[in-house]
């Protein structure tokens, strides 16, 4: 490192390895500078000036709410899942409108920033359409997310209170944890429903404002806090809240029907065509349109493989004994 003995402030300022060392003094690759500085006290003043200057070049960061990054990622996921790369929105407003829009956007952003700065930060796990993902929470609880679903929890609070928020459909294998001989509770929030568990396996589906729970093992409390109703579920129970009757309905179900999606399949038993279409719509994100009203009410039993969309559609056509066509984002069933 002999040439450095001739260095003036500006030479230091232009030296890549010197800059890297100032920006990241701890990195092993930059250690030779730490050594050199000790060995060359006469150059310390010039080097210090350069260091001060580089350190002063700390630039202002615009405030961007964490929510922005989460929403942007979901938007990217959606675009990729539908495989129709949408070009950036083309703005064809006149100047006046842009100004007006900018003012409104500014106000909204300000409000959003104020709002989110006060909220604790969350960790998101999410899936695009037509994809299934397995993930683990910090307590090693296993979660399997069906398509277009998400799990959200507060990282900082999760150690004390095990609480998650979900959308879509998620299967849980809750890890049993004991604290002073007491089981640590685990809570799932889905829309207006709350599920409290003590180490168990269950499936939650929350689509179109309608939440259902299927319990495979263990015991859970299913409650609708807003309606003051709750029930304790037993294995193989299937529960949902019937808003019209204002109470929770419990039925005994075959767990396999509700968890087949984890093997990229849907199993149906005497399910109406309308419900089948709703389920597929939630998975693929397409609009399923049934042209024939009477077909919509017929029931259907069978298994659909989800991985290959074209195969799935042709199987569906055979089962419904009708023609199915795909047009853009719509699946049309004659």
């Amino acid at each position, binding site marked *: 490192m002999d040439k450095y003995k001739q260095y003036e402030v*500006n030479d230091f300022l232009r030296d890549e390895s010197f800059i890297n060392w100032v920006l990241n003094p701890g990195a092993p690759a930059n250690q030779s500078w730490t050594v050199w500085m000790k060995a060359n006290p006469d150059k310390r003043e010039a080097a210090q000036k350069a260091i001060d200057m580089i350190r002063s*070049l*700390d*630039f202002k960061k615009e405030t*961007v709410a964490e929510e922005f*990054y989460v929403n942007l990622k979901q938007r990217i996921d959606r675009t*990729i899942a539908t495989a129709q790369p949408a070009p950036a929105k083309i703005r064809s407003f006149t100047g006046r409108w842009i100004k007006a829009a900018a003012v409104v*956007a500014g106000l909204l952003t300000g409000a959003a920033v104020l709002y989110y700065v006060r909220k604790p930060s969350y960790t998101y796990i999410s899936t695009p359409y037509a994809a299934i993902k397995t993930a683990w929470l910090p307590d090693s609880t296993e979660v399997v997310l069906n398509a277009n679903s998400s799990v959200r929890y507060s990282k900082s609070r999760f150690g004390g209170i095990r609480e998650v928020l979900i959308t879509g459909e998620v299967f849980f294998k809750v890890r049993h944890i004991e604290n002073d001989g007491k089981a640590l509770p685990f809570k799932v929030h889905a829309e207006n429903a709350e599920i409290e568990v003590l180490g168990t396996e269950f499936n939650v589906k929350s689509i179109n404002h309608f939440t259902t729970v299927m319990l495979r093992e263990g015991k859970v409390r299913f409650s609708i806090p807003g309606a003051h109703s709750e029930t304790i579920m037993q294995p193989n129970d299937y529960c949902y809240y019937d808003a019209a009757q204002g109470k929770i309905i419990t039925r005994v179900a075959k767990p396999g029907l509700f968890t087949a999606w984890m093997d990229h399949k849907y199993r149906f038993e005497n399910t109406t065509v309308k419900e089948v279409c709703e389920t597929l719509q939630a998975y693929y994100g397409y609009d399923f349109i049934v042209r024939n009203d009477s077909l919509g009410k017929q029931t259907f039993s069978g298994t659909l493989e989800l991985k290959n969309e074209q195969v799935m559609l042709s199987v569906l056509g055979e089962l419904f004994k009708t023609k199915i066509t795909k047009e853009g984002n719509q699946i049309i069933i004659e």
Partner: protein
Amino acid sequence: MTRTPLDSNSTHEDASLIVQIRSGDYDAFTLLYNKYIRQLTQYGLKFIPDLPAVEDCLHDVFVWLWANRQKLNIHSSVKSYLFKSLRTTLLHWLHRQDRLQTLTPGDEQSYRFELQLTPETLFLHNEQHRQIRQQIESVLLTLTAKQKEVIYLRYYEGLNFEDIARNMNLSVKACYKLMGRAIAVLRDNMVCSILFVIYCCQPVL
């Protein structure tokens, strides 16, 4: 420190992420997104102080990256590659906005790069530091967008000159010169200019 410059560990990690992404690993894609999205957003806002517009550009960059994952051929650091992709998209966006003003395509002279020092903190009690800060602030006003961008990418984001030159379609030499001039202005203001140092000398490579 809020800065997140490159280190060699991170470079290896990025290279393996790209390998995974090429083989269709969506989780690796998500990791890459989460790693750089904040820095990229900050960089984008320097060009266009309009978050929805920057969002559209970032969206296009990442969608493009995934759609073309099998063809990815990255010669610089991955971080630099992402910065370059965003820069190109942002300039296209700006160009579309300015179409009415008869800009020739590829004209980069007209872009802006808004650079301000971070708001003063309590740590700056030292008088000498305060002086340096004030001087940098006044000098920043006199620099061109390109000079500010080079300073930002080199001293703040920690990209190397070669990558910066490639990103900005400059030769490495031109990049050094641009830098040299910026430093000259900075330095002349800082040390009460006893020396008017000649920066035209060949860059040390």
